């Protein structure tokens, strides 16, 4: 009997496979009018000590603070002082300029690869601002804003991107796979989602030790499908780990839209319900909402209230990476038509609206950031760009596989050195 030949049931109704398809493909004109964007200020803000279930209505909502009038409104308004707002704006602008310069550097052949986070700057920057300096991030490749917002030297980042002599990772990692312990930024992995349960493990360790620092794990919408996502949520709920688990739903995973990760039937925030942990769904292009949500989850975690899953709803405005051309799978103007706007423009408009910023100051600040990035680039390029690398220091290739170089690697090192390189 072949399972393929259901001879017994010829008259039964036919089953059909559903294959999710994004609403718009190249050539279509995106129309987001059916997207329900609740007004700012509409979501209630439960106390951070509530039972997880009391947050669950927020997993299908969208926490928003910045209104159409660019004013902050509602229970989630974090009431930040203007200096903090300006600092966030500046960090976000720096991230964007940094991305543009490094993208260009890759195009100029100065390195092999780059990834922008255009349109998602508010998420990393505001999350960083809401946490303490000592809290630990387990990021993906699209959270460069965490480092920049923590004041990490731009030259360090660039040296990593160029794999040059200043690269503290010794040229071993693909560009943008930063790592810095002192800045609470865990080594980025090329293997998607691996960091998500690692964040839970770090938080469990902090709890075991009676520490007060918490961890924040990051994952993309597409990568939520990995088994590691489930590990993270399972261990987080079982041990009530002091961790914030963030899904950056930028609606695309290379060429696959978020429906391929399950977004047609539930939000990513809703996954929290199934594990009995707190969940929030947040406008990721609204820096104030991002800040408020992370602050809420941090307060909850710090008081042993357990983990929170936060979905940041946003849009990947550019290609996946320098290896990708999104015009092959989505309309080129989709980013522009995307209704939640540009996070930088929105925060800037808010500062304008509250009278704490103007075009002149913005232009001056942008010029400063630009100069800073350019200076850093100049500085780091003094230490070399990728095409010049890999000739010196071949012996370092065999370090750090183990704490000590074992005999077989010492032999291989000798062979590699004897070989030389052209």
């Amino acid at each position, binding site marked *: 009997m072949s399972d393929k030949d259901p001879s017994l049931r010829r008259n039964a109704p036919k089953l059909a496979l559903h294959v999710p398809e994004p609403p718009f493909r190249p050539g279509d004109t995106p129309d987001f009018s059916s997207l329900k964007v609740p007004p700012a200020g509409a979501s209630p803000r439960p106390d951070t000590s509530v039972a997880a279930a009391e947050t669950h209505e927020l997993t299908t909502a969208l926490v928003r603070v910045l209104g159409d009038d660019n004013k902050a409104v509602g229970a989630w308004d974090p009431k930040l002082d203007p200096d903090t707002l300006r600092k966030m704006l500046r960090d976000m602008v720096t991230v964007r300029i940094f991305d543009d310069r490094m993208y260009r550097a890759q195009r100029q052949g100065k390195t*092999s690869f780059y990834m922008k986070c255009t349109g998602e700057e508010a998420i990393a920057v505001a999350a960083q601002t809401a946490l303490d300096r000592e809290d630990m991030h387990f990021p993906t490749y699209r959270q460069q804003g965490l480092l920049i917002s923590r004041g990490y030297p731009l030259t360090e980042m660039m040296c990593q991107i160029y794999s040059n002599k200043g690269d503290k990772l010794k040229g071993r990692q693909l560009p943008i796979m930063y790592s810095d312990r002192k800045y609470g930024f865990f080594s980025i992995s090329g*293997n998607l989602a691996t960091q998500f349960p690692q964040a839970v493990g770090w938080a469990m360790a902090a709890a075991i030790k009676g520490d007060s620092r918490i961890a924040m794990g990051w994952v993309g919408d597409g990568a939520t*499908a990995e*088994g590691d996502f489930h590990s993270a949520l399972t261990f987080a709920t079982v041990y009530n780990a002091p961790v914030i688990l963030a899904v950056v739903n930028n609606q695309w995973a290379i060429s696959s839209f978020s429906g391929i990760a399950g977004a047609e039937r539930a939000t990513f925030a809703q996954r929290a319900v199934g594990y009995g942990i707190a969940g929030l769904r947040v406008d990721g292009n609204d820096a104030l909402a991002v800040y408020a949500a992370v602050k809420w989850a941090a307060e909850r975690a710090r008081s042993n209230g357990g983990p929170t899953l936060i979905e940041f709803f946003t849009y990947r405005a550019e290609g996946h990476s320098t290896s990708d051309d999104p015009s092959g799978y989505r309309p080129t103007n989709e980013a522009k038509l995307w209704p939640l706007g540009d996070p930088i423009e929105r925060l800037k408009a808010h500062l304008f609206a509250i009278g704490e910023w103007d075009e002149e100051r913005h232009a001056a600040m942008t010029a400063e950031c630009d100069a800073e990035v350019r200076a850093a680039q100049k500085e780091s390029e003094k230490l070399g760009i990728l095409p010049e690398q890999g000739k010196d220091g071949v012996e370092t*290739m065999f370090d750090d596989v183990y704490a000590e170089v074992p005999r077989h690697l010492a032999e291989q090192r000798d062979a590699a050195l004897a070989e030389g390189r052209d």
Partner: protein
Amino acid sequence: MATMNMIQALNDAHKVMMSRDEDIVVFGEDIGYFGGVFRVTEGLQKQFGKTRVFDAPIAEGGIVSTAVGMAAYGLKPLIEIQFADYIYPGYDQIVSEVAKMRYRTAAEWTMPMVIRTPYGGGIFGGQTHSQSPESLFTHIAGLKVVIPSTPYDAKGLLIAAVEDPDPVIFFEPKRIYNGPFDGHHDRPVKPWSKHPASEVPEGHYTVPIGKAAIVREGEDLTILTYGTMVHVALAAVEEQGLDAEVIDLRTLVPLDLDTIEQSVEKTGRCLVVHEAPRTSGFGAELVALVQERCFYHLESPVERVTGWDTPYPHSYEWSYFPGPKRMKKALEKVMAD
């Protein structure tokens, strides 16, 4: 006949087989509308429809496990793992389920599926876009492991893999998707069109699984290799002026022992070449087999040219990759005495 690069040849194999066999389904990350990050599945969704060619969630374990269920039903999954470096989340299902199903059910259920995945370095992909994990699959009884090195073989072997009753892990040497590579990274890239094996017949043909190809006959020594390194080895023997017999294994499991034995018995010397790390790489098995079976014919130790026992380091790519210099030194060693 048409001139194709490896990507086109692989794409063509899909089209030929999907047209012949309605039970073939193709899925994987980004392989549907977009046609795959290396374009191997381009146009398939349009031609064969969304229920036979579709994007999968980013879950290699989920891709393999649902393929197991489909194969149990009677379909033939022909799936893509985007990079071999990302096959590990699917490793449990491959090792514990795909490989063992025929055996544990006494052939009541079989797993005729093909898991395609690009492997190998030389494209500045860093640690997680450069790995060559083939030996990890050769240790698992029940799996076949196939690696083509030309467009002709790529199409013929992929068709044979799809027709094979057993599960096949099909590693594609991504460095040579668009042209052969002699190991000289500083020289201009050659296109496939200059290579005779880019002449690919139209329609159906197979290159048999389990048969090696003697890509160069010779008397001085035997070189056992596969994938990208076939071309690097060929270039190296020319450069050294050696009359080497170069064997492209094409299938690692089951291995073409006859061809290997005959060659080594003839030449009395043997070099094994692969890009994967040295320790417990498939080269170890090849060396073990050759010395077990041809010991009394060997005039010098079987040598290995391999990648190092380190992760693949981004900027030291060309010191990691087993290129012309490593080849030269090993050839000299094998030919000594």
